[in-house]
C-alpha cells in the first residue's frame, strides 16, 4: 500500500489560539482511518485545514497529498485533485438547485483535470444511477441545495455529492452528528459502497456506533492538538469503556 496523505508535525492557529500542536498522521490508499477525541481537541480544525478553509493559520509542519504540498493548493484545486470534505453542518444555498450545484462542481473538476465536461443528459444519467445506488429519491435534484433538508437528508446529500465527485481522500466531519440510528445506517452504508482500493477516508466522530458500520482500519485518538494513540478498531471499544481521559492518561 502506498501513502496517500502524509501529515507531519502540523501546528495550526485559529484567531491566535493554537489548536493543532504537532499533529502527525499517515494514511494509505484504501485505508479508512477514524479520528476520535474529546471536544476541542482539534478534530474539525484538522478537517478544515485539509479542505483549505480560510482563517486557519498553519505555523509549521507539512501536509503531503499524492506527493504534492496540499497546503499550497487553493480549495477548489484540492477538490479537483480528489479531496472531499463532508461537512458537519452542510451549508444551505437558496436559489441553486442541487443538480445545478453538483453538475457545476463536477464539470469544474473535470475542466481542471483536462477532462471533457458532461452535458445535461450525461450528467442526469450518472446522477440517477448514483442516487439509485444510495437509495435516494430523485426529487432532491430539483430542490435548492440543503434548503429545508432534514438532518438525515443533508448528510445523505453529502454522501451523494461524494459519490458523484468520486474523491480519493474523503474527510467525514462528524457525519453521524444529528442522525438517528436508521439514518446513520443508511449514510454509513452509502459510504461503504464508495470504498475502493484507492479511496482513503478520515472519519471524524465521537461515537463508536458509526464505526460499527464503517469498520475503520485504524483508529487515532486526537487530544490537545496531537495524535496520542493509534490502534485498530478495538481501540474504539476500549475508548467506549474507559473514556478519553483513561486513554490519554495511559498513553
Amino acid at each position, binding site marked *: 500500500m502506498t501513502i496517500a496523505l502524509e501529515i507531519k508535525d502540523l501546528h495550526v492557529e485559529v484567531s491566535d489560539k493554537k489548536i493543532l500542536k504537532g499533529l502527525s498522521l499517515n494514511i494509505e490508499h484504501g485505508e479508512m482511518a477514524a479520528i476520535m477525541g474529546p471536544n476541542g481537541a482539534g478534530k474539525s480544525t484538522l478537517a478544515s485545514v485539509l*479542505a*483549505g*478553509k*480560510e482563517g486557519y493559520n498553519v505555523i509549521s509542519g507539512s501536509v503531503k497529498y499524492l506527493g504534492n504540498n496540499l497546503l499550497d493548493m*487553493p*480549495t*477548489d484545486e*484540492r*477538490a*479537483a485533485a480528489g479531496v*472531499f*470534505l463532508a*461537512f458537519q453542518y*452542510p*451549508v444551505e*444555498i*437558496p*436559489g*441553486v438547485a442541487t443538480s*445545478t*450545484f*453538483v*453538475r*457545476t*462542481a*463536477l464539470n*469544474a*473538476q473535470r475542466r*481542471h483535470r483536462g477532462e471533457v465536461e458532461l452535458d445535461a443528459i450525461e450528467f442526469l444519467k450518472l446522477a440517477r444511477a448514483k442516487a439509485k445506488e444510495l437509495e435516494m429519491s430523485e426529487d432532491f435534484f430539483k430542490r435548492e441545495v440543503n434548503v429545508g433538508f432534514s438532518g438525515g437528508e443533508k448528510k445523505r446529500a453529502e454522501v451523494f*455529492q461524494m459519490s458523484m*465527485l468520486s474523491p480519493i481522500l474523503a474527510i467525514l466531519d462528524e457525519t453521524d452528528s444529528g442522525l438517528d440510528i436508521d439514518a446513520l445506517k443508511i449514510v454509513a452504508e452509502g459510504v461503504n459502497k464508495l470504498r475502493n482500493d484507492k479511496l482513503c477516508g478520515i472519519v471524524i466522530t465521537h461515537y463508536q456506533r458509526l464505526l460499527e458500520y464503517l469498520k475503520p482500519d485504524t483508529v487515532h485518538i486526537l487530544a490537545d492538538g496531537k495524535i496520542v494513540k493509534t490502534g485498530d478498531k478495538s481501540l474504539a471499544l476500549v475508548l467506549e469503556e474507559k473514556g478519553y481521559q483513561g486513554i490519554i492518561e495511559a498513553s
Partner: protein
Amino acid sequence: MTNISDIKNRYSESYNSMLPTLPGLELDWMKILRDDAIKQFHQDGFPDKSVEEWNVNSFRGLMDIFYNTQQENSYEIDLSSIEKKDPDCLVRVIFNNGKIINIEHDELPEGVKVNSLNFFIKNNPDFLKGKIKPANEYSESRLSNIIDSRPQSIVALNAAFHEDGAIVNIDKNIEVPGYIELMHIGDYTDNTMKHIRSVIFLDKGSKCEVIENIQSHKNNNMVFTSHVADIHLCEGATLSYNRFISGNSNNIHINNVHAQLDKNSKFISNSLINSEGQARNEVRVNLLGQGSSSNINVLMMGAKKSMHETLTKVKHATKNTKSEQIIRTILDERSRGSFQGKIRVDEGADGTLAEMSGKSLLLSNDARINSKPELEILADDVKCSHGVTVGTLSKEQLFYLQSRGIPENQARKLLINSFSNTIINNISKILIKRAKNFILGEFNEND
C-alpha cells in the same frame, strides 16, 4: 454650471418655441394639460434632496444642464440593422430617438389595438381623454394631508414636452397571444431630452403581456429621457408589464408607471435594470377595486459608477386587495442604489394583504445602497409585512462551493445568480429567456 432658475426659464422658453410642433394642440384638453404642466414644472423645478422621494442620491447632470428637445440626428434608421422580431412577439413598436419609426405585426387579432400616441390623437382622441391626466393629479398626498407636487415634477415636464408614445388598447375579454414589445433605441445628440407618454388600457376580462425594452444608445452623450405610462386595468383584466432598462454612463432615464386597478384585476410589474448610467424606476399602483392584486418585482444590477433607484407606492384603497413587492439589488464597484417602498392602506381597506421584501447584495466595499420600507396603515384588519436586508456574499457558502471544486470566481457568480433568480424566476415563460439574456454579461453564469 448654470443657475438653476435660469434653466427653469429656459425650459419654459423652449416649451413656447416647441409648442407648435407638439402633437395634440387641436384638442383643447391636451393644450390645457401641456400649458398647466409646464407652469407646474416651472414652479417646482427638478426635485432636489429636500423632496422626500428624492433624498437619497443626487442625479448628476439633471439640474445643471439644459436639455434640448430638438434632435439633430434624424429619426430615420435602417430597419434591417435592428435585430429581428421574436416569433413570440405579436406586435413590436420601435422608437428611435424618442419617436415611433415602425410598428411590426402580422395580422392583429380583433380587439387588439397598438399604435402611436400621434395616431390616436388623429384618429381616436376621445379614447385618450381622461387617460392622460393633468399633471397635478399625480401629486403625492402625504399623511399630513399635504399635497406635494414636487416629487412628480418630471411627470409634469413629460406632460408638457411629450412628443410620442405607445398606446395599447385591448378590448373586452381578449387574451392577447404572445406579447407586445415597445422597443427604444437611440443615437441622440449631446444634451438632448425626450419624453415618451404611453397609455395601456385593458378592458374587462382581457389579458396582455407587454415588454418595454429600453436599449443602450449608440453613443454616450448626455441624454435625459423620461417615460410615463398610465395603465388602467378594468374588472378582471390581467397585465404583465416588463421593463428591461439599459443605458450608457451619461444617460439619465426616469421611468414612471401609474397603474389603477379595478375589481379583480391583476397587475404584474417586472423591472430589470442594468444601466451603466442613472436610472430611476417608479411604480405606483392604486388598488381601487375589491379583489385586485399587484406584484412588483425589481432587479437592479449596478456596476462601475451607475446609480439605480426604485420607488414604489402601492395603495390599498378598498377592501380585500393584495400586493407583493420583491426588490433585489446587486451592486458592484462604485455603484449606488436606492429602494424606497411604500405600502399604504386606506381607512376601511380591511382584508388587505401586503408584503414587501427588499434584499441587497453588495459586492464591493465602495458600493452603497439605501433601503427604506414604509407602511402607512389606516385600517384595522390587515396583514402587512416588510423586510429589508443588506449583505455581502456569504463566506460559508463560498467555501462550500469551492470545497466541491468550483473556482472562486464561478462560485461568486453562482451565488449572485441565485440571488437574482428570485426575480428572474417570476418572469413569464415567454419572456424568461430574454430576461436571462438581458442579465447575461452582467452577472449571469451561463450553464
